[in-house]
């Protein structure tokens, strides 16, 4: 009974959140604000992707920004190719390639003439990368902090390659001056409600699909892996297969978020797959509540929202990063499970989760001991 009510309450919370983000354009008509909110929501998707692997399965992926950035570049490449006749005439090359004396469009750019391929690649490339890393890491049963180090190193390598291969990637500048995505007669302009809705619907879909996944037995086994990986191996489950699966799902979602991010920002840049972004994702997740999809998404929206507001307020121009730091410390100290644990604090005004659970255990333990003593006497 209790369980059912809890999961109903959770569903209700998710639904309210989704209705709230979907109704934002009804109240906000300022295009600049809407663009900013779309950005926050995309960070929410990115943070949710990390909570799948970190919060639920215990895999701390410090290279999450790599998936995000690769997705972003896939979208940018497709949009860039559509600008060719306007910017570079008939030669058929993006402008930065002309500047870098490239003579022929590289083979891996060719398929990006198709939007369908670009959208497919925006998910498939991060998934393939995740699969490759997972194959090496999880087959060898590498876990804990080593996974974090390996994924971080991978991120740095990819970042360096993209900056280094300026002729094909635009280097430091990234891929700029993109066209607007328009499919099925809808223009996904960076400042349009259409793009905001696209981001909000994606987040909604991710939340509910993620919730369904984590309530399936597969999701249960993933959480079991987080708690005690060895125990799960000895039940006969191929833990590495489960870890690989969620690592790929997480990478794919992050890649999709990256594509949306290109649309919102109107460019792709190596800063999208930089270490600072990757670490920010971890902070968003931790602040919101890493073992909750809604918490992780909310964490990203709240942190980036507060950050944006503070950094744009003249009074906090010099101090906003200090204030953010202080907020993180306070949350980590007093709400180690993130903002979502505020719900437990408010709900039913109970003193603490621990006393609620331990007390009945202790009581019935005493009863059981007393009962067995009586038995042994008689």
């Amino acid at each position, binding site marked *: 009974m209790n369980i059912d009510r809890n999961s109903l309450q959770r569903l209700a919370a998710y639904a309210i959140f989704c209705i709230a983000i979907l109704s934002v354009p009804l109240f906000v008509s300022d295009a600049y604000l809407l663009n900013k909110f779309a950005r926050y929501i995309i960070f929410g998707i990115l943070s949710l992707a990390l909570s799948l692997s970190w919060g639920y399965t215990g895999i701390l992926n410090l290279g999450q920004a790599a998936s995000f950035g690769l997705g972003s570049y896939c979208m940018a490449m497709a949009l860039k190719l559509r600008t060719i006749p306007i910017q570079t005439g008939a030669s058929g090359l993006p402008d930065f390639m002309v500047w870098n004396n490239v003579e022929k469009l590289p083979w891996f750019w060719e398929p990006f003439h198709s939007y369908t391929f670009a959208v497919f690649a925006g998910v498939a490339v991060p998934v393939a990368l995740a699969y490759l890393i997972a194959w090496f890491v999880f087959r060898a049963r590498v876990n804990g902090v080593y996974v974090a180090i390996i994924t971080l190193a991978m991120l740095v390598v990819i970042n360096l390659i993209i900056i280094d291969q300026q002729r094909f990637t635009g280097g430091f500048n990234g891929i700029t001056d993109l066209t607007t995505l328009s499919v099925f007669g809808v223009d996904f302009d960076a400042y349009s409600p259409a793009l905001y809705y696209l981001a909000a619907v994606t987040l909604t879909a991710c939340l509910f699909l993620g919730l369904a996944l984590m309530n399936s*037995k597969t999701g249960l086994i993933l959480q*079991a892996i987080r708690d005690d990986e060895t125990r799960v191996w000895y039940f006969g489950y191929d833990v590495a297969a489960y870890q690989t699966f969620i690592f790929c799902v997480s990478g794919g979602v992050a890649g999709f978020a990256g594509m949306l991010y290109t649309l919102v920002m109107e460019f792709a840049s190596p800063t999208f797959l930089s270490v600072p972004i990757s670490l920010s994702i971890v902070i968003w997740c931790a602040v919101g509540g890493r073992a909750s999809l809604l918490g992780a998404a909310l964490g990203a929206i709240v942190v980036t929202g507060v950050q944006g507001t503070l950094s744009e307020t003249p009074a906090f121009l010099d101090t906003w990063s200090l204030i953010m730091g202080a907020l993180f410390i306070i949350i980590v100290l007093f709400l180690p499970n993130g903002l979502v644990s505020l719900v437990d604090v408010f709900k039913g005004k109970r003193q603490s989760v621990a006393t609620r659970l331990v007390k009945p255990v202790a009581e019935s333990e005493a009863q059981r001991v007393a009962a067995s003593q009586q038995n042994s006497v008689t």
Partner: protein
Amino acid sequence: MADEAFLKLQDIAVEFGGFRAVNGLNLDVKRGELRCLIGPNGAGKTTALDVICGKVKPKAGRMVLKGRDITKLPDYKIARAGVGRKFQVPSFFRELTVRDNLEVAYCKRLGVFANIARFRRSAESDGLEKLAELVGLQDFLDHTAGYLSHGQTQALEIALLLAQDSDLILMDEPTAGMTTAETMHTAKILNALRGRHTLIVVEHDMAFVREISDVITVMHQGKVLAEGHATDIQSNQSVKDAYLGSGGISHA
């Protein structure tokens, strides 16, 4: 089939950096038997269990389960072949409820995609509730496992093994940290399991061992020192010597 050994270890040797923890271990266990493994500290009892469940790979020797050579199989495939393991330190899922712990242990389908469309409270969970009742955790089904007492976590891990329903169950000190009453209850459970399951139990508590054992195997310095029924073992001189003489194993 009945006479053929269910589990057979032949000349198993395990080395840890030059130290031979297990040195030429031979062990035959019949189907449905409840075998107790005892011996002084460092005799290689836990290592023997580690070898059987695949946690440690032997340097030499051969291991056959139900006529199938499992020496080279990775741990999770040994588990699939029908070996369940209870660890010395209770090992379970702290942040999941007792019910979800049991649901994970109930592992008839193992694949990622076989489980993706299955939602938790399945028809099978009735059986899981009966299991919880058997080990005395029926009132705690919806509690987070991390808040259970130590004795209860031992009971929980035994329930997990029952849910896993392996043919061969390995238990490393299942009663450590239990009250006397809980220990006796555990003995009752193990006695009920024999026959349908084959069990190998490592224990120090001799009262418990006498309660459950068919055949006791005494290990010493990585080898089998003696094998037999409790009474034979207690009067065996070499066993007494291995336990530093004085009171024999009744004071172990």
